[in-house]
Structures are given as C-alpha cells and as structure tokens.
C-alpha cells in the first residue's frame, strides 16, 4: 500500500530563492492538513504536487506515482480546489463543471450528469444555470468544490477552502468536507492557515515554516494521548494533604501555574473518584478540565524553532 503522499528530498527553487527545502515525509492519513504561516510554502507544495512547478531536486510521489515523470497519471487522480477565484465568469455553473469533468476524461453524458449531481451536493442545485460571475463568494467557493469532485478524484486538494466565508457558510463548507472525508472514498489534503479548519477536518497535520517541515503529527493519536491529562483548580489553592490523597489513587501530579494542579490519570481511574477524594478532604473543586495539547499548542511549538526544521 503506497502512502498518499511521499516527499523524497523535495526541493523547489524560483531563481535564487529556495522555497521548499529538501522535504522528506510520508503522509498516510485520510485527511491531511497543511499548516503554516503565509509564505511557508503550502501553496508551492500543492502546486508542485500538481505538476505546476518542477522540483529542482528530489521528488514527490502520490499513491506511488512520481509527480515528475507520471504527471498526467497523477493529475488524473486529483481534484483541485484553488485558493483564488478560478472559473469562467460568462459560463453557467453547471456548464463550467461539465467542461472541467470532460477535460478530466469523462464522456459528455456522464460529465453532464455528474456536474448536476455535484452542484446539488454542494447545495447550489437551484442556481446551477446562473452565470458564475453572478455568484456570491460563498457560492463561488462551493462551485469550486463542485468542479473538484465532479470527476470522482481519489485525492482532493483544498487550498484555503473557507477563505472569505461568513460563519454560516464556513460551517457548511466544513460540514461538506467532513462528509466527504467520512465517506472514505477519497483522501484529502487541506491547506489552511486557520487552525480550527484543520483541527475539525484532518487527522494528520504537516506544519511548514520557511520551506521546512516544522512539525508532523497525527491528530488522532494526540487526541487519544491527551485524554488522561487533567488540570484542576480548587478553592483557596492546592492543599498538600489533598495532593497526597490524590497520589494514593495512582495519579502523577505536578504544580501548574496560578495554583493549579496538573494530573496524569491512570487508565482505570474515573473522574468521579477525584470528586470523592475532594469531598473527603473537604476541598472544593472549582475547575477541572482536560488539558489538551491542542493543535494551537503544537503549531506554536513548531513556530518557536529557529528555522522551522524538525
């Protein structure tokens, strides 16, 4: 089984500037997030995988196919939703998606059928005969998603899919992406600088900084491992006897900031038992929260490294 994307010493240069610096990674997740500040190289990486930029050294493979030597084959597996407005303003929505599906190789009657389906799927069924130039920003984003999925790709590239959307439109877009992911028919790569989008849609994250891989993590594993971490705050500060009583339950403890107590719970311990101990010790628990090492923490840690190199 080939990884979804394999980067093998991938370097991309524009003139004297090196944009991607010898990247090495194997991405196997169903939905992979590409994170990074502006100018980190996210769009360049996507464009290189699409064959728009030639690597100056190294290579990348998608499902085991080399993007350099098997570009046509690679592109037949891909659906691409670009970041900017990309469409032909004078065409109706469904005709445009049909054109794109035919260019992807679908026979004309299938292309037409799938263009209609894709438009209904993204929620634009009622406006599919309107010219694309008259669409609102949210509708244009949805139309871009429609053209990206109409030909049934195996891998979907979504470049900033929620750019410029208002909150309800953003929620609809995220729900669509999640639904596509849950169906399990295709893998998706979501490039964004919005941590929330990536956190809600992805199970693997590749963080880029200055053309280097600053971090790579499996969000699912992070979420699982974070479940046993707790942060606890009591009225009047932490009492020594209370800490000792908790430790008898098998918890590891450490003093946190602002008089809080950090705990690592043993697998068999239930939260209810902590409340029982607190009651016995006459301690009032004010706040108890799972201390998640959130994507934000991971991202900020990755950004702290000097040149972004792992």
């Amino acid at each position, binding site marked *: 089984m080939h990884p979804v994307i394999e980067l093998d010493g991938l370097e991309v240069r*524009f003139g004297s500037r090196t944009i991607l610096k010898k990247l090495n990674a194997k991405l196997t997740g169903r939905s992979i997030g590409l994170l990074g500040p502006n100018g980190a190289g996210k769009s360049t990486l996507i464009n290189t995988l699409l064959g728009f930029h030639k690597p100056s050294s190294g290579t990348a493979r998608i499902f085991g196919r080399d993007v350099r030597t098997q570009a*046509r084959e690679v592109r037949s597996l891909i659906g691409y939703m*670009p970041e900017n407005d990309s*469409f032909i303003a004078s065409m109706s929505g469904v005709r445009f998606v049909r054109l794109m599906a035919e260019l992807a190789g679908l*026979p004309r009657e299938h292309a037409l059928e799938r263009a209609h*389906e894709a438009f209904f799927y993204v929620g634009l069924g009622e406006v599919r005969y309107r010219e694309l130039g008259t669409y609102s920003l949210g509708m244009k984003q949805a139309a871009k998603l429609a053209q990206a999925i109409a*030909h049934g790709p195996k891998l979907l590239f979504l470049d900033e899919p929620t750019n410029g959307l208002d909150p309800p439109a953003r929620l609809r877009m995220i729900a669509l992406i999640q639904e596509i992911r849950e169906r399990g*028919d295709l893998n998706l790569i979501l490039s964004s600088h919005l941590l929330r989008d990536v956190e809600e849609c992805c199970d693997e994250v590749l963080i880029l900084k200055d053309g280097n891989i600053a971090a790579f993590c499996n969000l699912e594993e992070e979420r699982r491992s974070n479940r046993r971490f707790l942060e606890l705050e009591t009225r009047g500060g932490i009492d020594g006897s209370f800490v000792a009583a908790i430790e008898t339950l098998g918890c590891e403890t450490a003093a946190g900031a602002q008089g809080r107590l950090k705990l690592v719970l043993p697998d068999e311990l239930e939260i209810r038992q902590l409340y029982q101990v607190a009651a016995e010790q006459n301690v009032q628990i004010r706040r108890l929260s799972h201390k998640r090492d959130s994507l934000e923490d991971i991202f900020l840690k990755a950004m702290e490294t000097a040149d972004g190199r792992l």
Partner: protein
Amino acid sequence: MAVYKKSYRPYDGGLTSSWTRFLVIPRFAFEDMRKSRFLTIFFLASFIYPLICSLIIYVQHNSSALNLLGVQGANRLISINATFFLNFLGWQSMLALFLASFTGPGQVSPDLANNALALYLARPFSRVEYVLGKMWILIVLMSCMTWVPGLLLFLLQAYLEDGWTWMTANSSLAVGLFFGSWVWIVILALLALALSAWVKWKPAAGALMFGVFFVAAGFGVAVNGVQRTRWGHLFNISALIGSVWVHLFGADPAVNNGGAFFRMPAGEELPLWCCWSALGLLCLACLYMLARKIRGAEVVR
C-alpha cells in the same frame, strides 16, 4: 443517481481517449460562438466570394450560358490560372484575418482573467493540448474559409476542364492553396492566441491584431524610406506571406506578386529564405509568448 439524493459518490465509468480530449475546448467554444449573430453572419458571408468564383469557373466552361447572357466569347477574357487562385486566396485570407481578430482575443484572455488555467492544467491535460484546443477553433473556421473552398474550386475547374490531365499539370495550384492557407492559418492562430494571452482586454487584443499587420507594415515602409533599403518589408507580414504563396503556387514572381493586400512592391522583393525565416521567427515569438503565459501557477521570482 437521482439528484435529490445529494450525496457524493466516486466515478467508476469509462474515460475518453486522452488524444482526443483537447477537442472538448473547441466544442464548447463553437457552442459559444453560435450565440453571436454577428460572427455567424460574417462566417456565412465569407462564402460569397467562393460562390462567385465557382460561377466564374462554370461560366468559363459553358458557352451556352455565355450565349444566354449575350456575351459570346467572354470566356476568352477569363483565365483560371495561378492569378485567379492567388486572388481567391488573398481575398479569403483577408477575411480570415478579420475572423481571427474577432474570435481570437476571446480565447485565452477570459481564462487568464478568471484564473481558470489552474483548473484546466490540474487535470490530465497539458499546456500543449490547451493551446492546440484553443487553436483548433481558429484552424477549423479559417480552413472553411480558405483551403477547403479553394480545393473545391480546383476540383470543379479540373472536372470542367480535362479532368486528371489538368489536375496533374496544375498540381502546384492545389499545393499552393493547401500549404499557403495553412501557413497563413498557423500564423494567424498563433498570433491571435499570443495577443489574447498578453492583452486581457478583448477589444484591445483585436485592435492589436490589426496593428501587427497594418502598423508594422507602415513602420516597414518608413524604415525603407529613411534607410533607402528594402529590408523594412520584413515587418510587413502580409507581403512576406504573399512572397511565400507565389513560390508555393509555382507562379512567376514577375507576373504574380501575391494577391491584393499580400503584394510585395515590384522590384523590392526579398529573398525567399528571408521571408520564410521572418515568418518562422514570428511563430517562435508567439510560441514563446504563449509558453510564458500558459501556466498553472504564476511564479513570482
């Protein structure tokens, strides 16, 4: 699947041949062009001159028709020769220039203005196929205006004359019609697409197309006047192509010096290899302009 189900499903049907996929672009473009009444009328009007020519050929071979018109012996005034076909090609090529100026600028510029190239090229579809698809529209239309009716006239003349004997004796006319038209069509199509790729405003791109022919020719005349030379004609694309046609038709340059708009001034003819080289350089320049602009993603260095 019924549209009301509104769910995503992968595609598991067959795919079209990758070799013919570029034809999708002209098919959509023809659908759009049919909506333009002006273009439709102009295209149909371009067949008036070939019809007149076919009438001339018919009348030239039909004494009874001449008798009926009361112009006995007029057939001696009409000659179906290289001059006749060069004039035909000249007139039709002029119309082809107009057509290319009307339709060419609308080919690439909307895709560039709307950033649609990334979507075309993110598919199993190359830059060459894209350019070929866009050129195909102009090639088909201009072929219908130039070499297709030209060869039909040639066949009509051969049929009414001595058939095979006339055809073999005048095969250079057919060669000239076919290859001469193709040289003109390729130059026009490449120039129209290149200008369309660089000038995103359609009217400006159309005007520039005429400018390349008329203003550059004027510039060439000015160079000739100031420098007392004839090399300024290298800027005159129509005169260059006229010289090439005369050669392809196997005509005598002293008698047949291109047709109307495509005439090189007498005594100022340039060597044939210079004409070919200049036209070749023009095509290379257009290809370079297209290669610079037809990209999936713009590179900011």
